[in-house]
């Protein structure tokens, strides 16, 4: 009869109470794990969205991240095809790499001059075939069905814009954009109502007939590498929501060749970044080290650096930190509930078994033996509660994942099935289980200590 077995039998003695305590622990463990799984869903969802768009790593001019925004011309990478070739052929990088593709950031003014409207835009030029391949990355097995980009198979002068840009440029109707309210008519200039009728009529005739326009052609004006303005006519093929209003209001996506013509004219085309997508996110440190080595040895004439997706997307890190804090808060809350539940159960057990404690002590069991016995009971409650809690969370997460619930994760523009990641999340499961077991042991410590310090004769006299 070892202590563990004796502790187990003592727990089975008052089955209802032990079961109630276990139920509290199971619910607590499930809640922690399900939230942890949901949090993982958000992390992986954001990561997948970012990696599909911009890759894991980007080779950029070393100052581009801090100073290059809006001044792409000054921070272009020359001979970028050579760099891409080297990277693709590198024996260390090649096995890790899925896509290496150039991008060029552009900014300027887009105008629908037929409608007499314009606005500033920012976006990028990219190789659409490569971008479509990047969208296939799905290391976390999201139930996604990536669609080809709207620019796929289109002419070089084609472009996509954000919904907000379409709204301002009055292209909603032409592009069949739903839920795109028409811009309100401008207020008449004060006093114009007092103008003579003939003048007012002439003024109305001079206004452009916006409602009659139905084209999807816009002009984009940008500063070229030499500082002179350059203009390109673009055929808008689609207006897409970008998930964030600020981006919706200024996004433009072009073919790389078109963007390069706009910025570099007839000069040597450059790229502001080379996006590298890896097979797995965990390969980032190794790939980065190798890239830095390559750049410093073979392309040292250019001041290039490597940035990872987390650095390039601060919202990603902020979101993870926020969910980490919420997770810690929930875990603390549930830990406290478990602490008091187990503590209460053990305290009641100590009171009920006072005579037994006196008997064991009289027979020669040391104080430490009594303490160990009750702490073993706490430990067993923790182990059983954690095990059943994990099983329950895995089961519930599987049910949720099969239920067909959908939601729009941060950074997404379409609803995706809700996936709670519990099974396979070893760190989350083991960490939560160990935490729960430690809390159960800790909560048993106080009653166990009290039991061990009982005066034997008083304990034997207890009624």
């Amino acid at each position, binding site marked *: *009869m070892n202590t563990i077995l*004796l502790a187990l039998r*003592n727990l089975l003695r008052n089955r209802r109470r032990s079961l109630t305590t276990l139920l509290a622990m199971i619910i607590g463990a499930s809640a922690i794990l399900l939230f942890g799984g949901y949090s993982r869903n958000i992390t992986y969802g954001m990561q997948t969205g970012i990696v599909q768009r911009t890759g894991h790593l980007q080779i950029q001019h070393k100052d581009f991240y801090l100073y290059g925004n809006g001044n792409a011309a000054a921070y272009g990478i020359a001979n970028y095809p050579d760099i891409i070739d080297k990277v693709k052929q590198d024996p260390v990088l090649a096995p890790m790499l899925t896509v290496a593709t150039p991008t060029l950031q552009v900014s300027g003014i887009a105008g629908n001059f037929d409608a007499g409207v314009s606005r500033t835009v920012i976006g990028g030029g990219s190789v659409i075939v490569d971008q479509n391949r990047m969208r296939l990355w799905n290391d976390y097995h999201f139930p996604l069905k990536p669609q080809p980009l709207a620019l796929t198979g289109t002419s070089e002068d084609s472009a996509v814009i954000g919904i907000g840009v379409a709204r301002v440029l009055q292209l909603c109707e032409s592009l069949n954009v739903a839920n795109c309210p028409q811009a309100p008519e401008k207020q008449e200039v004060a006093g114009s109502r007092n103008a003579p009728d003939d003048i007012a009529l002439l003024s109305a005739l001079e206004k452009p007939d916006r409602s009659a326009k139905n084209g999807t052609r816009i002009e984009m004006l940008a500063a070229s590498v030499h500082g002179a303005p350059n203009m390109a006519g673009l055929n808008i093929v689609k207006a897409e929501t970008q998930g964030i209003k600020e981006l919706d209001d200024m996004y433009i996506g072009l073919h790389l060749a078109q963007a390069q013509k706009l910025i570099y004219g007839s000069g040597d085309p450059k790229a502001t970044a080379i996006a590298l997508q890896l097979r797995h996110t965990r390969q980032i440190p190794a790939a980065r080290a190798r890239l830095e080595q390559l750049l410093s040895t073979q392309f040292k004439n250019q001041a290039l650096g490597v940035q990872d997706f987390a650095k390039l997307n601060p919202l990603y890190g902020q979101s993870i930190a926020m969910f980490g804090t919420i997770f810690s808060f929930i875990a603390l809350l549930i830990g406290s509930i478990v602490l008091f539940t187990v503590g209460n159960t053990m305290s009641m057990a100590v009171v009920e078994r006072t005579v*037994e404690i006196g008997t064991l002590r009289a027979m*020669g069991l*040391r104080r430490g033996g009594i303490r160990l016995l009750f702490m073993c009971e706490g430990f067993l409650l923790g182990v059983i509660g954690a095990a059943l809690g994990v099983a329950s969370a895995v089961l519930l997460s599987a049910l949720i994942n099969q239920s067909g619930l959908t939601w729009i994760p941060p950074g997404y523009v379409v609803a995706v099935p809700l996936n709670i990641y519990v099974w396979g999340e070893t760190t989350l499961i083991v960490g939560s289980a160990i935490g729960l077991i430690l809390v159960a042991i800790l909560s048993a410590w106080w009653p166990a200590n009290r039991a061990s310090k009982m005066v*034997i004769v008083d304990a034997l006299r207890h009624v």
Partner: protein
Amino acid sequence: MQPDTPVLLKQVGKTYHLDSVDVPALSDINLEIRPNCFTVISGASGSGKTTLLNLIGCIDRPDHGEVIVAGQAIRKMSDDELSDFRARHMGFIFQNFNLLPVLTAYENVEYPLLLAKVPAAQRRERVLSLLDAVGLADRAGNQPGQLSGGQRQRVAIARALATAPKLVLADEPTANLDSQTGAAIIALMRKMQREHHVAFVFSSHDPQVQAEADEAVFIRDGRIVNIERHEESEVLA
């Protein structure tokens, strides 16, 4: 004092502090328990029988005086040393049997042997032999809840003798039993005491039990008033 004297008490006193009132439980107790002897401590309720038994059993400490058990003064022993000492040298039988309800009869008898770290094979042999001796070999797998009062007390006797102690203490062992079962238990204790050559000390005010004893210690108001040995009587107060 004989060299193998199991218990010797010298000028022992014990006072309980109840709130702000001091209640003297024992005063000037001088007592020698002889080896292999069946000793009964008798007295009215509140006379100090249980306190005296607790001191002899090393589960309580005197306020003053010396308690020497198995040749060792318990005063300087730490709590752990005293626990180990009890595990080696003492057996206890309680009025309410005090068997562990989650253990079978076999496991209850085995428990003191586990505390004494006796190897498994020896444990098994010893437990089966004791259960056989108390007539409960066929009840080894029963839990206390499945046994009668007399059977539980027989398991308690077997448990008390498990580690072959020098001294077995029993506090009113027949108080919760009917007279017939009580007599059977006394007879069994007597038999075991003789077979195992162990000193039995128990408290009782049952005249039938006193008649069975080799030695009867009478106590009143915390003082020993009479010790009867066989047919001789020594009046102390």
